[in-house]
């Protein structure tokens, strides 16, 4: 191509192209298969002869809505993931700001401790959290789920924002402090524009994590506040032929976040690398 100097560890272009496409299609195959199956009848779904040739039908999608109130679960997913992400940013950003620009002797320890809490398996806290949620009547409510999502994403958010803030030269902030800017002006006019990318990628990742979170939504919710991840789990032991319906439900559960992920992948990666990868 245009660049004369290339990393020639990879073989010739044609071979590379074919190999890369094969690998990509292989990895994507399960999702493609699911998408195809969701437009089939149940009989077509399990038959090899109708693998590619069939008349698409939308009946599975309407069935999913009528069998289990899809829209309610989707609404729960949207509300819990969006609100917990915003709430998390609101708590994490000030903490990350404080540690990045006013480091103390304990800053490293605090960061490591936060990561440590994230490594505690959620199941270790299941019974206490369940009991607490029950006694404060937060069981099977969106508020309860939002609180849990926010707290379990908080360590990662602080870490990601911390590494983003670290890349902003502190002298810029100091300079505007010397100009007599107060904390609000400093954040509003200097810090915010400089860290929009970091805030976005942190928010995006937490949105994806909350949307896909299954442990807490399976254990803390039922019919009222269940998210899509919990709805899909209810399809795990169905009776009779169900591949097409399962596929339709799955596609409806993942489509919003997968399409969202496609568009934000570059932004997302930047956040995920904790600033360690350029």
């Amino acid at each position: 191509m245009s660049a004369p100097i290339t990393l020639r560890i990879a073989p010739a272009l044609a071979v590379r192209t074919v190999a890369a496409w094969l690998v990509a299609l292989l990895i994507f195959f399960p999702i493609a298969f699911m998408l195809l199956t969701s437009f089939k009848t149940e009989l077509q779904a399990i038959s090899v002869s109708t693998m590619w040739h069939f008349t698409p039908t939308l009946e599975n999608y309407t069935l999913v809505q009528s069998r289990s109130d899809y829209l309610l679960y989707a609404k729960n997913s949207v509300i819990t993931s969006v609100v917990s992400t915003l709430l998390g940013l609101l708590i994490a950003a000030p903490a990350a700001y404080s540690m990045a620009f006013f480091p103390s002797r304990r800053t490293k320890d605090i960061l490591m401790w936060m990561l440590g809490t994230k490594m505690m398996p959620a199941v270790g806290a299941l019974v206490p959290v369940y009991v607490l949620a029950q006694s404060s009547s937060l069981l099977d409510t969106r508020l309860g789920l939002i609180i849990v999502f926010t707290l379990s994403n908080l360590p990662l958010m602080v870490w990601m924002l911390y590494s983003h803030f670290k890349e902003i030269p502190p002298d810029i902030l100091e300079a505007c402090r010397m100009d007599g800017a107060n904390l609000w002006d400093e954040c509003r006019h200097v810090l915010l524009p400089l860290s929009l990318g970091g805030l976005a990628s942190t928010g995006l990742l937490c949105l994806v994590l909350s949307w896909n979170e299954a442990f807490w939504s399976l254990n803390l919710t039922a019919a009222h506040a269940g998210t899509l991840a919990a709805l899909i789990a209810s399809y795990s032991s169905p009776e009779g032929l169900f591949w097409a319906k399962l596929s339709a439900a799955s596609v409806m559960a993942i489509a919003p976040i997968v399409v969202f992920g496609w568009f934000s992948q570059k932004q997302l990666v930047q956040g995920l690398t904790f600033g360690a990868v350029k």
Partner: protein
Amino acid sequence: MRTSTDAAMVSAPGAPLGTTTAPVGSAPPQQGARVLRLVKPKAPKQPEQHAMHRPLARLLLAPAVGTLFLWMIVPLLMTIYFSFIRYNLMQPGEHGFAGLMNYEFFVTDPSFMTAVMNTLLLLGSVIAITVVVGIGVALLVNEPFPGRGIVRVLLISPFFVMPTVNALLWKHMMMNPIYGVLAQVSKFFGAQPIDWLTDYPLFSVIVMVAWQWLPFAVLIFITALQSMNREQLEAARMDGANAFQQFRFLVLPHLSRPIAVVVMIEMIFLLSVFAEIFTTTGGGPGDASTNIAFLIFKQALLNFDVGVASAGALFAVLLANVAAIFLIRMVGKNLER
């Protein structure tokens, strides 16, 4: 003597209100001071500038630290308390002191060692697969080729699939021993279809989890490879380095930090794999695919034994701490800037 008085005479009238720290001999206007600070990044910190902000900064840290501390300590204390009493949901009202009985029960349960081994096997295999295959795939798609953008999108997709969908998709449509895609492929080649989830349950779970996390590793490695120094590679090639040597001595060292990141993040999420096991094998057959997280879940919600489950949870916390220490040793240094 003469110079200092001169300087004082110059600076005193012109100094704006509040700039008591104006250095001798130079009393630039505000605008100039800012430029000066920007040009000299290593200028010593001036305590009075921080005096106003530092307590405020501590205050900003408080909500995050406070809520996380509560989120950690309250369940932990409750778990410790539960672990020392008899607490079975099927026998209400009986909360006597149990001593170390719950611990003994959990540890001597034959499932315990199996679960520990399964947890480590799952963690180790998925990290190994995603790092090795991830580097391979990233190298494959690093250079431009037709359709690279689409390939990238296809490769990353599994990362956004929620674990419950991932599990059901593989359980039914891929691994079903009669109709599943893998069974059809086996039949096509004239081989006996394999009942993956019954015969190789842990391996099946590893496949699902690795499929989910491979895109993550690939993405990180692609991003890292983009920043490789091409002149260096070209020079190595001029000197006669073959592909393997280039990889071993240039690419791999460049990827050490990205690998550390992948290992760290995956470790956090893989220590507590739950949904994939819950929705497919249910930990079985027997305990063949039970990890620590699922074993505790079984004790608490299937055997209703909160006491034993709490003792187990403390073991999980212990395991997490051992892993965390190991991680900080291995990875933390690599992430220091």
